[in-house]
Each structure stands twice: as structure tokens, then as C-alpha cells.
């Protein structure tokens, strides 16, 4: 039997860039093919070619053994190819049913939409593949993980049997990832085939049947998950040996830099997001804040950096009360902030790299003298930071929005860590980044710690916390469950704490259960 999908010698050139260079790829029926590569390796281009959004300069595509001419998404859909984009293509104000049937609406009495018929089909698909979702819910009200299911249902509704998932786990919580993997397995069991695009190594090893690694637009190698490990895949992807755990000495904590006492912060709406928490971060240590997303970490960081008012409690930075201070005052008191949402808060995408590198020092000499911006100083500052922090950009005058995610983050990291900050608050500093950038940003955070700064690292990735932090704060529903020194931290205990269970209670419960039995 021929493979369900085969690409032969696909080449695509953009002005100045060879995005895909003679790429061969084979997808067998009922299998998951992982397409692994750093940002800019050519994964998205390749999939856009397959989906008909780009025309390849050379090469051929075969679907079920037959040569296919794909001129647009319509052709791709007709061939049974469907794609879930990294950024969902859903209309938030419409219901699940309306979103799914959009473009192929069933009609009754020649005039009216037949929502019920569509909803019935959606129910059938949901049951068949274990994609639990309410057909009449508004998409905007659904959590991201469920929205992704809606996208998958959309493909199944159009009878796709080759599913392309572009970075499907980038926006999901760990629990949602597990849910997605279950869905993928049930899809495979029904004979669907999947291309899974990612740069997360663990996931690749867990879910795929076959791995193709792209680097610089070429196939750098293929691998089988049984015969690979994270290290081998990472070096294939980056093209050199990769250090997955950051080498660092034991922390030498000194005086407290950030002191938080009984801090209470309101979230969106009326609910209390942070409940009277207290902790400190000392000079020369990294304190990690672990927790499933949405347990008050975002509000905590916003409050510490002056972006969200505190309801009660005290925050002291180097002994100075900054509880109700503005972002400017907190910054000037010595805090650096790598924000959680880099594009929303940390960058002005239309500005050149150089202008983004002065976002919170624009009014200080040497960048400005009185109210006059000093072009040469801005330029010099940019040239220096771009070189020092390895930001890959065509020039310092390139708009930041046209850089890759990793390089955008490096711009922020360069700006924040290059200042003489005593405190670094880094929220999800490596979310959505490739291995190379993660490695780099981690080493910079450790370097900052060793230089005597206090680092507060908030991350949804437990691995990141475990490899960087010296002490770990676990948050659950706005409260601190526990503060664990790294020597005593285990993945299992932290996982329980993140779910709101104290490990001793858990073992006590387990003992009680045993006794009862």
C-alpha cells in the first residue's frame, strides 16, 4: 500500500532565503509523523505548501500514491488534508456549531440554516473520537484546550484524514496536553494520519511514530522515537551539542531584595487572585514560582511590577516600600521585568529593534538629553546589546515584529538584564521558544543570579523551574502551597502541590485508605 502522503524534493525560495531545500517526507497511514525544528527551520513553510497557501518552486506531492496539484486550501481539503493553525481560526462570538459548519452550512427548506443537523453531526464526531464539547457553547467562552478540539472537529467535519497540527501544545497547560494526546490516539485508532509540528522534544518522544528534523530549510535527519532521546534530538535540531540542564553552582543567597508580606491582589472581575501571600527573594538566588497557569501567578507578577494595584499587604524592594508604586518607580528602584506576554506588554512590534531596546530607559541619559532623543546613543546601545545578547536581526532598524519569537524574547531579555537591576522578575521567559533560545536565556538568568541579583522566575514548565530555581514556591488558587528548597524538591511532590494537595496529607490519605481496606 502506498504511503498516505509523500513529499518529494520540495523546494521553496523567498527573496534572500531558501526556506525549503529539497525536502522529502513520508507519512504512513495511522501514524504520527513529528516534524521537529527550531523557529525558522522551514516547518511552517513546508506545511503551508502542503495546505496550498504557497506554491513550491520545485518538487512533487503524492496523496495515497497519486500526484496531487494543490493550488489552495480548497484543493487540500478535497484531498482530505486539514490543518490546525497555531493561532486558531475561530470566530469567538459564534457557537461551536456555527464555527464548524462555517463555509459548508447545511440548509433546510432551501433557505434556512440547519443548525440542528450540523450539531447532530458534531455530537457524533465528538462521541466517536472522544472530543467532548458542547455544540451550542460560544467559542469565546471556551478555554484554549477546548477551542483546539473545535478546530479538530472542524477538520473531521470536513472529512479530513490527514491532520496537520501546527505547534498544538504551545498554548496548552500540561493537563490539556495530556487530553490532546488522548484525542490523537483515538484519531489514530480510527485510521487518521497526523503530522505533528513542534519543537518540544518530550512530546515528540511520547506521541510520534516517526521523526523528521528540519534545520535551515533542509532535512537534518530522521529518527525513531524508540532509538532517540532528548539530547540526540536537540543536537540534531540545533546542529551542535546542546546543554539541556544549565550548569550552575550552588546559590549563595545574601540579603533579601524583594520582601512580600500578606499580599492580596484582585484578578479580572471581583475575585481575589492572590490571597495574602508572603515570601522573599534574596540576592544571589533564583526563586521559582511553580503552578498550573491561572493560579494567581500572572496577577502576582503584575502587582509586583506595578501594573496591577495591590489590595492589601506590603511589598518591599531593597527595603523600600513599593506596594503602591508605579512601574516607573519600581523600575528605577532596581527591578527588571520580562513580561509573560512579550508581544502584548514587552514590545512595540512596529518599532525597530533599536527603539524597543530603550523602552524603559528612553528618557534617561545617554539615550536622551533633557527631552531630546540621542540617535547615535540609541544606535550604539542597540548595536552593543544585539551583539552581546546574540539577537539575530538583519539590522537594528528592522521592526521587531518581523523577528522570530526567540529573537523577540532576546530583545526583551537584553533590555531587561543589561540594566543594573537588583531584582529580575521573569514570567514565562521561554514560552514558545526553540531549544537554542531557551538554553541561552536560562544561562543569562543564572549569570544574573551569580552577579548578585535576586531572580523571581515564574514558569508553567516544571522542568524549567527544576533546572533553574534554588527555592520553589508552589501556588494553587492564589495561595502558596509550600516553599520547597531545590534539594528536597521532587517532580511528584511538586505535581501534588500544584494540584492543591500536600504530599504528607496525600500519604496520610493513602495510609487511611489502606487501613480502611
Amino acid at each position, binding site marked *: 500500500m502506498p504511503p498516505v502522503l509523500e513529499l518529494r524534493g520540495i523546494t521553496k525560495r523567498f527573496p534572500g532565503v531558501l526556506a525549503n531545500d529539497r525536502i522529502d517526507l513520508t507519512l504512513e497511514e495511522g501514524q504520527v509523523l513529528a516534524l521537529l525544528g527550531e523557529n525558522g527551520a522551514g516547518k511552517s*513553510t513546508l506545511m503551508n505548501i502542503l495546505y496550498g497557501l504557497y506554491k513550491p518552486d520545485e518538487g512533487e506531492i503524492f496523496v495515497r500514491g497519486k500526484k496531487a496539484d494543490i493550488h489552495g486550501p480548497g484543493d487540500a481539503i478535497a484531498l482530505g488534508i486539514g490543518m490546525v493553525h497555531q493561532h486558531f481560526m475561530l470566530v469567538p462570538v459564534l457557537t461551536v456549531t456555527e464555527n464548524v459548519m462555517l463555509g459548508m452550512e447545511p440548509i433546510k427548506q432551501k433557505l434556512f440554516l440547519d443548525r440542528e443537523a450540523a450539531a447532530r453531526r458534531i455530537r457524533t464526531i465528538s462521541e466517536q473520537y472522544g472530543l467532548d464539547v458542547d455544540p451550542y457553547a460560544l467559542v469565546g467562552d471556551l478555554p484554549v484546550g477546548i477551542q483546539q478540539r473545535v478546530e479538530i472537529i472542524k477538520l473531521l467535519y470536513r472529512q479530513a484524514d490527514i491532520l496537520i497540527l501546527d505547534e498544538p501544545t504551545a498554548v496548552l497547560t500540561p493537563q490539556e496536553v495530556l487530553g490532546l494526546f488522548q484525542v490523537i490516539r483515538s484519531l489514530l485508532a480510527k485510521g487518521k494520519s497526523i503530522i505533528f509540528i513542534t519543537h518540544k522534544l518530550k512530546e515528540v518522544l511520547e506521541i510520534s511514530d516517526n521523526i523528521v528534523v528540519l534545520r535551515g530549510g533542509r532535512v537534518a535527519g530522521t529518527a525513531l522515537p524508540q532509538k532517540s532521546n532528548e539530547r540526540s534530538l536537540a543536537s540534531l535540531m540545533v546542529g551542535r551539542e546542546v546543554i539541556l540542564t544549565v550548569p550552575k553552582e550552588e546559590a549563595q543567597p545574601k540579603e533579601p531584595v524583594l520582601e512580600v508580606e500578606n499580599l492580596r491582589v484582585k484578578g479580572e472581575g471581583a475575585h481575589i487572585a492572590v490571597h495574602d501571600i508572603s515570601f522573599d527573594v534574596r540576592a544571589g538566588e533564583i526563586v521559582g514560582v511553580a503552578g498550573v497557569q491561572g493560579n494567581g501567578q500572572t496577577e502576582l507578577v503584575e502587582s509586583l511590577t506595578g501594573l496591577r494595584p495591590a489590595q492589601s499587604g506590603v511589598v518591599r524592594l531593597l527595603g523600600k516600600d513599593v506596594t503602591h508604586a508605579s512601574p516607573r518607580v519600581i523600575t528605577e528602584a532596581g527591578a527588571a521585568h520580562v513580561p509573560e506576554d512579550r508581544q502584548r506588554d514587552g514590545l512595540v512590534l512596529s518599532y525597530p529593534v533599536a527603539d524597543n531596546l530603550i523602552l524603559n530607559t528612553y528618557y534617561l541619559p545617554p539615550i536622551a538629553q533633557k*527631552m531630546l*532623543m540621542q540617535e547615535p546613543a540609541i544606535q550604539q546601545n542597540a548595536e552593543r546589546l544585539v551583539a552581546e545578547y546574540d539577537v539575530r*536581526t538583519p539590522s537594528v532598524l528592522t521592526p521587531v515584529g518581523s523577528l522570530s519569537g526567540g529573537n523577540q524574547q532576546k530583545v526583551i531579555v537584553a533590555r531587561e538584564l543589561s540594566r543594573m537591576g537588583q531584582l529580575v522578575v521573569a514570567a514565562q521567559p521561554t514560552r514558545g521558544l526553540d531549544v537554542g533560545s531557551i538554553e541561552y536565556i536560562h544561562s543569562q538568568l543564572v549569570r544574573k543570579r551569580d552577579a548578585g541579583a535576586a531572580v523571581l522566575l515564574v514558569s508553567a514548565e516544571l522542568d524549567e523551574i527544576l533546572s533553574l530555581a534554588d527555592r520553589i514556591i508552589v501556588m494553587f488558587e492564589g495561595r502558596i502551597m509550600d516553599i520547597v528548597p531545590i534539594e528536597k524538591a521532587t517532580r511528584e511532590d511538586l505535581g501534588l502541590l500544584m494540584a492543591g494537595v500536600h504530599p504528607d496529607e496525600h500519604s496520610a490519605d493513602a495510609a487511611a485508605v489502606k487501613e480502611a481496606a
Partner: protein
Amino acid sequence: MSEENSTPKTTKDKKPARRFRERWRALLTPLMAIVTALILGAVVIVVTDTSVYEAFEEGFGVGLGRAVEVIATAYGAFFSGAFGNPGRMVNGLRIWIQTGDGRAWTQSLYPITETLRYATPLIFAGLAVALGFRGGLFNIGAEGQYFIAGLTTVFVGYALTGVPWFIHAPLALLAGILGGAVWGVIPGYLKAKTGAHEVINTIMLNYISFRFAEYMLDVGGPMARGDGRPVSPLVQPSARLAQFFPSNADIRFNIGFILALLAAVFVYWLLFKTTIGYEIRTVGQNPRAAKYAGMSVSRTIVLTMALSGGLAGLAASTDILGVIGFMPNAFSSGYGFDAIALALLGNSHPFGVVLASLLFGALQAGARNMQGVARVPLDLTDILQGLIIIFIAAPAIIRALYRIRTAESGEEVVMTRGWGQM
């Protein structure tokens, strides 16, 4: 969509030649928009001219000849109305040199000075709206700010007596700036403090200012002249702006145009060379990042609206002090609304606004002459302006028509945001 095509591997800076090509390409689209509008305008001229139909009844060739003649007359009048008649200029210059009598020469300059005079308030109003756009604010209230500034300017202009011109005229201009600024600050403050959308509030304030001016200037009103006409008293000569050709009463070209150019340079300097401009642009592009960077978003919004209102106010001041000499009740000019088109046409860049205003000024001056000489109604200007704006607003039409490649995008200006989004 793809990250690949946006991470080129070259690290070299752009070559000057390439940069020049990009600039040219950026200018090409508006240029072709104007040409296309003129072509469509010609079609309108022909189909609305009855003599063309009559000529076509005599024969196709005759009709075609007549059509070409009509277009040539109309646009001929248009261009000589906007830029002057070269023959007359040369002749005037010759008389001046031979006899020392410069009157014919000055008179031949009348059309081009009219273009510049029309352009003057447009530049101010266009800068006002463009500055707002840069700060993420859609100031539809330039018209209302213009009215209030008219009142404050004219009041200082006629009520103050016995001061030398070098104090009086600047004072009257300042009064206009302040009047416009106050009228701009109101919606700015409401936006900053309550999130109320500036589009709604500026429109509402427009109505208030229209009625307020009516009350002040109507017969028997506090600022009426008292001779039974709904107009203000004449401003003192000491408040009038200096004229370039005081000997020729037809020519009303005055120092206001120079002030407008200076204002454009000032706005450019402010926006792109100062920390205040950096704040305005950052708030306009990404208010959340501005807040993150420690800027005061509300203060910046209020400041932007004050500056915008002040610029709109100068449109009224220069019109009153430089051209009319008093404020009529029916002052409405539409400058405030043209200004939105000018800001769009000029891509919210101060120098772009100047070019766009010169174009609109030429359209106004040219159309007046066209109406007089070629009997083509003045309304053709509205059609031409409308067409140009459509083609600028939908550049894809022009690019597709002439196969122009897209220019590389830089800082795009956010027109406006939804309710309370800061």
C-alpha cells in the same frame, strides 16, 4: 504566517539605492491614485457635458473631438487656476523688468498663492488629526476645535486695542491655540479617566461648539458686530498677519503659510526626536507596552489631544487673522473633516500631510477657475477628492491597476481602538 521569510540571513544594512527605490515606491501609489482620479474626473466631465452629446449626434469623430476639447479646456483652466498661467507670468516679469511696474507680475502669481492660501488651514488641521493618529486617537473634533479657536482668536483680535502688532498677533494666535487645546483636552481627559471613546465625544463637542458659536455671533449675541449681520467685529489691524503682497488686494497669501510649514517641522521634531514624541507614539502603538515601560498613558492621551486641538485651532487663527479678518457665523469650512482625509493621504506623517494639503489646496483653487472659465461645476473637486481618498484608502486597487509592488511596511498607524481599551 511563516516565520521563515521574515528572518533573512543577511546582516548588512540596506543599500542607499534600495532605500531610494522603496521611497519612490511608497510615493508611487498616491501619485498614481491622483492620476487615476483625474482620468475618472475627465470621464465625469465628458458625460455631464451636453455639448458632447450634441456633437456625437453629428458624428462619432466630431463627438470625440468635442470630448477631448471639453476635457482640455476644463483641465487647462484647472491647472492655470491652481498654478498660474506660464505665459502670463513671463509677460508680467517682462513688464516688471522693462517698466518697473510689478503689478502684472504679481497678478500672474495669484493662482499659485490661492493654492497655498487654501493649503494653509488644511496643513494645520491635517497635522492635528495626524498627530492624534500617531497617539492612537481619532480626533474627529478638529472642526469643533476650529470653531472654539475662531472665537478665542477673534475676541483677542478685536477686543484688545493699543498693543503693537508684534505682541497682538502672537497673542491672538496663542488664544486660538489655547481655545483649540481646551476643546481637545475635554475628550482626551474623558478618554484617559473613564475610557469614553474620543470619536463619540469629539463629534458631540463639535455640535456644542457649532451652537455655541451661533449663540455668540448671531444678531444680538455677545460677540456680534451690532450692525445687523451675524458676524464678529473686525480684528484690529495690529492683530492681522503680515501679507506677502500688501499692494494687491486680490492676493491674500500671508505669513500663515510659513507658520503652517513651521508647525509641520515642529510636529516632525516632536514626534520623532523627543521623548514626548516617543511616548505619544508608544501609547499609540501599544498602550500596554507604554504602561509597562513606565509611561503615564492617561497623561500622554491628554497631552496628545491638547496638541491636536491646538493645531486645529491654528487653522482657524490663521484663517481669521490672515485672510478673513473677522469670524462669520457660518464659519463652517469642513477643514476638520478634510483633515481626516489629509492625515490618511499623508500617512500621518507631518511632511506627507503638507504634500496632501498642497494637493487639496490646488484642487480647490483649480476648481474655482474651472467653474469660471470652463463652466464645470465646483463639485468636481469633491468628486476628485473622494476618488483620491478611495484609491489611497484601498491601495490594492491602484497596485493591481498599475502592477506596483508592495512597499516594505514600517510603523503602521493605529486609527482607533474600541471602547476603553487602553
